[in-house]
């Protein structure tokens, strides 16, 4: 055994010094990367546990379905008008933004034959996605609320959210279409069908997962931020009931008011928990939808 090692020092089964060093380095890398991955697990779990710990005793059925009460307003009662307002804003935003983003993404990925036009549009859309949401809020206030005389209203806030969702959705849709192997297009079109038929029957099904992921991202981003609706849609207190031309309460602005006016931290944590739980439920159902769509398609 020892002799063999002497005869051919690099070919034995224990490995040379440098070999063992590189194995060790590999292990260290692995540990470091594992740690980074673990942070990705730890962070959301600890934040959510903290919110649950602080907020769970506030959350009840009546907290969800009541309007705010007490003096100062919000110390008692529930948050229904804010839940309703956020749901309505998100729905309007998605209803307006999704068809436009789908059309834009399809055009850029499937129809646009001018490289320069595609790249320019894509660059501008990426810029749009990078604009801070408070700027959208300001724009919405100046243009929609004041100039177009929409007033602080559900429709003004919904349109601002649509503006925020649009670039996120468009990029997600374009990317998921672009990741489809060109063989599908070549094969489909070589059977003499139109591009529209190919898109409808093949490409959208293949891109389905990416599109749903984009919707989750866009809705989460839009619904969670207070800035875009702060001066365009939201009101301090409402008893519920929706109207396109009327302002609404929203979860993030309600949360902002509760904390910034030091009304009730208890109620604030309850509100935060409801917001997070809502987004998580939305996320989970989207994932389920994605599985279902993917399952029948793959």
């Amino acid at each position, binding site marked *: 055994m020892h002799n063999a090692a002497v005869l051919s020092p690099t070919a034995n089964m224990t490995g040379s010094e440098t070999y063992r060093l590189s194995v060790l380095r590999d292990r260290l890398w692995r540990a470091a990367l594992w740690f980074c991955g673990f942070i990705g697990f730890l962070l959301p779990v600890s934040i959510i546990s903290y919110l649950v710990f602080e907020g769970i005793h506030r959350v009840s059925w009546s907290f969800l379905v009541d309007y705010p009460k007490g003096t100062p307003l919000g110390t008692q009662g529930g948050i229904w008008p804010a839940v309703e307002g956020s749901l309505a804003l998100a729905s309007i935003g998605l209803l307006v933004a999704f068809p436009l983003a789908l059309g834009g993404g399809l055009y850029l990925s499937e129809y646009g034959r001018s490289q320069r036009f595609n790249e320019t549009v894509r660059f501008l859309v990426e810029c749009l996605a990078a604009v801070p949401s408070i700027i959208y809020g300001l724009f919405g206030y100046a243009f929609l609320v004041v100039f177009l005389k929409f007033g602080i209203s559900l429709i003004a806030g919904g349109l601002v959210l649509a503006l925020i969702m649009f670039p996120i959705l468009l990029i997600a849709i374009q990317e998921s279409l672009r990741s489809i192997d060109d063989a599908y297009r070549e094969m489909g079109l070589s059977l003499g069908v*139109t591009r529209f038929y190919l898109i409808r029957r093949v490409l959208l099904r293949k891109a389905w997962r990416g599109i749903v992921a984009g919707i989750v991202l866009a809705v989460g981003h839009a619904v969670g931020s207070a800035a875009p609706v702060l001066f365009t849609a939201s009101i301090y207190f409402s008893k519920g009931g929706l109207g396109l031309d009327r302002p609404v309460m929203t979860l993030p602005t309600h949360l902002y008011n509760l904390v910034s006016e030091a009304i009730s931290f208890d109620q604030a944590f309850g509100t935060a928990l409801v917001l997070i739980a809502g987004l998580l439920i939305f996320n989970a159902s989207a994932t389920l939808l994605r599985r279902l769509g993917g399952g029948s398609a793959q």
Partner: protein
Amino acid sequence: MIVPMEMTCSYAPEGDHEDPADGPRIFDVRDLSVTFNGRSVLRGVNAMALDRQVLAIVGPSGSGKSTLLRTMNRTLELTLDARVTSGDIHFKGERLYGNGTDPRLVRKRICMVHQKPVAFPMSIGENVLFGVRFHKNWNGRTKDEIIRSCLDRVGLWNEVKDRLSDPASRLSVGQLQRLCIARALANDPEAILMDEPCSALDPVSTARIEELILAMKPQLPIVIVTHNLAQARRISDQSLFLYDGQSLEQDTTERIFTHPKNGRVRDFITGKVG
């Protein structure tokens, strides 16, 4: 067994043509030139395919075989920057590149089978009906009849008849390639183009595709690009040799492989180049 009865019966014996070159020309490629981004890829190619025959296109890699094939059903123009700069192709006497020719109708009538088979994200049955649902060429048949007859023609019916609603992506590559051929046949094409249809397949699947080609030949002219010279010899009646974007020689497969006139062709066939 792949060859259905009615096909073997309608097979026309070779002796029908005195000289194959005088038979009816299905494809007639005349002086065809193609550029990619201004770079010349096909230069004055001449070729023809005869009725009830298989034409094999052979030649070194990059010689323009796929490009030529894709001009034959107007799928070349799906690639940006590709242009047919001169010449034309006559298909049964009609100009493929004439004014007012709708490329989609050309593609419906002349189908293409690709190197890499692709399953569309739908059931096996729906994959077969992909073109039919668009072109509406039901011709009084129900969808089940079309699925059955097309899968039968490619010898896939018995293998998949119990799982027609399964996703097509669960098929093996060899089965998938036959599904792609069934999908093309469902269009009721008048010719079939194949670009290295066996290069992703194992020998058994390859043999099945070759049998299938021979079985389809009596109804459909077939043009096949192949890297495999032995395969070209086995299944084709005519062979065209492409070299650097030019058609060096076309003749019966027999003559091309035994007495090629062109020195380059001889070198390629005897394995000196390529």
